């Protein structure tokens, strides 16, 4: 009985998460139709205005419309988060698949490297960002990915280790299929669930890390902005000019919450124990 209840509730959180993200996506994709302003053009005469009818969310230090900046900022935030996650997932999955499949010394050494990578202080992202000469968006994406693939690798490795002993894999092996074919055609579809769940968790993490990099002044370079940079721009007078940072913070919060809800729902759907 209880199980059924959980299902329906978790289905609810999946729906709620999708709804929220759909709304945010619509906002950042077609929101620009709602605003007459350009996200980059400055109007110093109208700097730091509080929300009004002409500027729904007020203006920033350069007189740029915050509402418009949020729309474009959201695009960047999403692009960074999605690409970094994709890269991390691809790396993690490949590492996990092959270490589990080949095992032995290869597995031992690679997993030891994963240990090192996991123990690596995250502040090294900062060192690398500044050391490599500022932060272009591509660089940010790669660095964020580089510091996030390990969890996925572990999950995939654990899953594959289990699946290796399942009958369908043994059968595939017996029929002489190649390693790649078994791994990608047979095993991978069966473990895609946990990978997707870990991707969702990663994406929330990456959005938050990206925003704290911006807090350290290392995020996207002006005049462009992600939500993190906009949040950071309101730091001079967070109480006096609340309209700069609060909406950006809410955007991040809502987006991450949306992903978390989906993650919860999916985990429940894919959870092997609960399916039993």
């Amino acid at each position, binding site marked *: 009985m209880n199980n059924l209840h959980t299902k329906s509730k978790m289905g609810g959180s999946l729906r709620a998460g999708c709804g929220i993200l759909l709304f945010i996506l619509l906002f950042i994709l077609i929101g620009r139709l709602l605003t007459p302003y350009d996200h980059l*053009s400055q109007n110093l005469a109208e700097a730091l205005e509080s929300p009004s009818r002409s500027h729904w969310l007020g203006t920033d230090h350069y007189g740029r419309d915050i509402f418009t900046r949020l729309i474009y900022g959201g695009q960047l935030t999403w692009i960074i988060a999605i690409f970094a996650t994709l890269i991390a997932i691809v790396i993690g999955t490949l590492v996990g698949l092959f270490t589990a499949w080949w095992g032995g010394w290869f597995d031992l050494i690679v997993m030891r490297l994963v240990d090192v990578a996991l123990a690596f202080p995250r502040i090294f992202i900062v060192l690398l960002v500044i050391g490599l000469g*500022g932060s272009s968006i591509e660089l940010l994406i790669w660095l964020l990915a580089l510091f996030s693939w390990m969890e996925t690798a572990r999950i995939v490795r654990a899953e594959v280790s289990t699946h290796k002993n399942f009958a369908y894999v043994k059968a595939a092996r017996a029929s002489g299929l190649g390693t790649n074919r078994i791994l990608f055609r047979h095993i991978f579809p069966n473990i895609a669930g946990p990978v997707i769940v870990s991707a969702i968790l990663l994406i929330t993490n990456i959005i938050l890390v990206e925003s704290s990099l911006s807090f350290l002044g290392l995020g996207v370079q002006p005049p462009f902005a992600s939500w993190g940079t906009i949040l950071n721009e309101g730091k001079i007078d967070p109480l006096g000019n609340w309209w700069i940072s609060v909406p950006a913070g809410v955007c991040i919060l809502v987006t991450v919450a949306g992903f978390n809800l989906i993650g919860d729902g999916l985990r429940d759907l894919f959870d092997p124990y609960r399916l039993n």
Partner: protein
Amino acid sequence: MTFRNSLRLHWYYIPLIFFLVFFSCQNKNQHQIQQTALYPPTEQTEDGGTLVVGIRTEPETLNPLFALSQSARNVLGLIFGRLADINADLETFSPGIAKSWEVSSEKRQIVFHLHQNIHWHDGRPLTAEDVVFTYQMHIHPVIAWDGISYKQNISDVTAPDDSTVIFKFHHSNHTMLLDAVEGYILPKHILQQYPPEKLYTAGFNRRPIGSGPFIFVEWQDLQHIRLAKNESYFKATKPHLDCVIFRIVPDNFNLLNQLKSGEADMVEGIHPKNFLAIQKSWEAGRSAIRPISYLGRRYDFIGWNLIDPQSYAEAVAAGATRASIDSLIRPNKLFGNQKVRVALTMAIDRQAIMNSVNFGMAVPLHGPVPPILPSYNADANIVWEYNPGKSLDWLAELGWKDHDGDKILDRDGEPFQFEILTESGNLHWEQVATIVQAQLAEIGIRTTLRFLEPALLYGKRLPNREFDAVIIGWTVGLTPDYAPLFHSDYFFTPFHFNGYYSPEFDRLDALAKSAPTKAAAQRYYDKIARLLSRELPYTWLYYRMECSAIHSRFKNIIFDKRGLYVNLEDWWIPQSERLKIDRIFEN
């Protein structure tokens, strides 16, 4: 060749990076006021009380030989003493450890007579030996003291007896006294225990012993530094405050919060926006926090790269010297032309930048001489006012027009575009850069911004001339010296990053330095100002006003271009206005 170390990079090291370090102010006429006393000096004063200064960065060391950061220097000024202290006119001196001195131009020497009864904080007497030892440390190659340039004209320092010191010079000039007194006097009996190469890591650096009005008490790492009043200070008026605490708060928002909640009494470098709010509530009588603004020591500018980076790299690789500059270095394809620099300058609206970034708390700057110096002459500069139309005309004359209709100027199919660098984490410069970018875009120039971490910007890109334009600022010393920035002698040094080369400047600079009198030197400084403001190796933007705030219970505060710490030993608090914190650290 002697020269002054008059300019240092804005070197906001440390946590700084994240925390907007902002300086500037309003009231455009204030720079004419030499000195401001917040209260008329009073006869009766009351002893006791505590001052808590909120600072962003922790001093790296409290050894005057190695301290570079402003926060360390502020603390050192209270713990240590100099032979004599410079006055607000930046020309005359008041007695310090030396009670009197005789300057003799013919003999090229200065004789200092020290106060008789000066003691180090540990009770040992301060003698002429300490002064001689200090000089030896200053010029020691292993120490590599930051202020070495002051001592380069000095040939010898001797102590005929315990209270007399004689400085001998190579050449006589008008800066002899300044050269001699620069640098805090160090305790020989302690520092001689360390070999010079171990001094950098000496325990003394964390527990300094000086001779100044305040005694070092404790240093809690990353939290605070506490000083106490020196009861046996050698001057007639002893310090009034019992205790001075420097409290380290890296985050700006939190620092201001501390000021409002009374956990800190004094904060410097407040963002103009926050400063205006403090001023508003002070004027409305709603707050005991008094705003203080004055023309400080910083200006910001756009530096253009006048030379071709590749030719510079080749010249350096080929071991070029000053003599081969002309033959080896090619001018920059954009900024090598003075007309382009003038056109770009006319396209930049300084006033708009000042209003937006500094909230009006700055004065426009058009030439190299800082307004706080006696040698400043506003009429000497050529002023290129904001005039985008004229700017476009000048560029059109050079062939830069929007031929293909993409709203970007171009010439021979090449669009007019370049990269502007600035320091990352310095929100102030980031804002200036963002506005400059928009203003240049107005006339059809495309720029990209790149914010670089200081180590990379000052350590790599600028010294290697790998840049197009840079927005940064200088902190000005109390004596003018433009040679490290523009003289060809310095062509291959890191600070001469824009590659300006002009025999005319070299000539004027030499004339100004060898001028026998200040009046004669002034003529050449005016010519230098005229030359540089016409040639525009920099586009000077504005000179900042410092914004500080201090609790109103402190009386007898004097501040001027030397800063807020000029007379801290004279500050006092009336009994009636004391707070809880004033009684906690009573002696």
